[in-house]
């Protein structure tokens, strides 16, 4: 995990500002193209990506592969939760304190990465540990099982 793609204690006022913050980090490393952030925001407004996992909510903003150079993802841990809408019920607002901004270039060849990410979303305990982590190295070691 690239430590520069982890943002701790982010003070974001809304979903747009956390997507911007994480998107800029991806852009700085050239993982995504200049068009990526606007495309993610556009998609989020039409087809939101909040996942309600019962006792925990996470958001996984992303967009089409044409805006991506190299597959990767950034993690944002928010100081105060912001609202994202639900993927399954787009009118429903969820309070999100943990965001995974995903950049996927070629899904067919990224089965390992996608499967690993899915394992994270299905593991509420792990996400709570990430949410409560105090430094980036802790997060990195929690996620060392991810296959790229």
């Amino acid at each position, binding site marked *: 995990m690239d430590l520069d793609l982890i943002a701790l204690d982010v003070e974001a006022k809304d979903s747009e500002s956390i997507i911007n913050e994480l998107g800029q980090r991806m852009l700085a490393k050239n993982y995504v193209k200049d068009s990526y952030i606007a495309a993610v925001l556009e998609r989020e407004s039409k*087809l939101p990506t909040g996942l309600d*996992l019962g006792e925990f909510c996470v958001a996984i903003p992303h967009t089409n592969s044409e805006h991506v150079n190299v597959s990767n993802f950034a993690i944002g841990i928010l100081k105060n939760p912001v609202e994202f809408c639900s993927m*399954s019920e787009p009118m429903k607002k969820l309070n999100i304190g943990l965001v995974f901004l995903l950049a*996927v270039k070629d899904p067919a060849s990224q089965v390992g990465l996608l499967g690993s990410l899915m394992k994270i979303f299905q593991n509420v305990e792990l996400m709570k540990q990430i949410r409560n982590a105090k430094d980036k190295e802790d997060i990195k070691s929690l996620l060392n099982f991810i296959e790229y």
Partner: protein
Amino acid sequence: MKQVNILSVCGSGTVTSSMVAGKLKEVLGDKGIKVSTTEARPTEALNLAQSGRFDFITYTSPLQAGDYGIPTINAFACLTGMGEEEFFEETLRVIGEIKR
């Protein structure tokens, strides 16, 4: 060996549809079912469904209204793991009803 063709739909036609497709291949493959998947966006789903190439649809983003002509299964449970067992029960029931 039984073979099924699944149309996996999500918002961008890439990320969550591929996650669901991977899970379907894994779980159904273990049951001896050969799975072929195509990932698509909601706007492409109706045309693809009416092409006759697919046995059923799984979706993580709401599908647009229309006559899909094949069963549609909400795969949100498969994505989050909550209710995943019921999702696969429904999927297996739909597969059992496929006539060919």
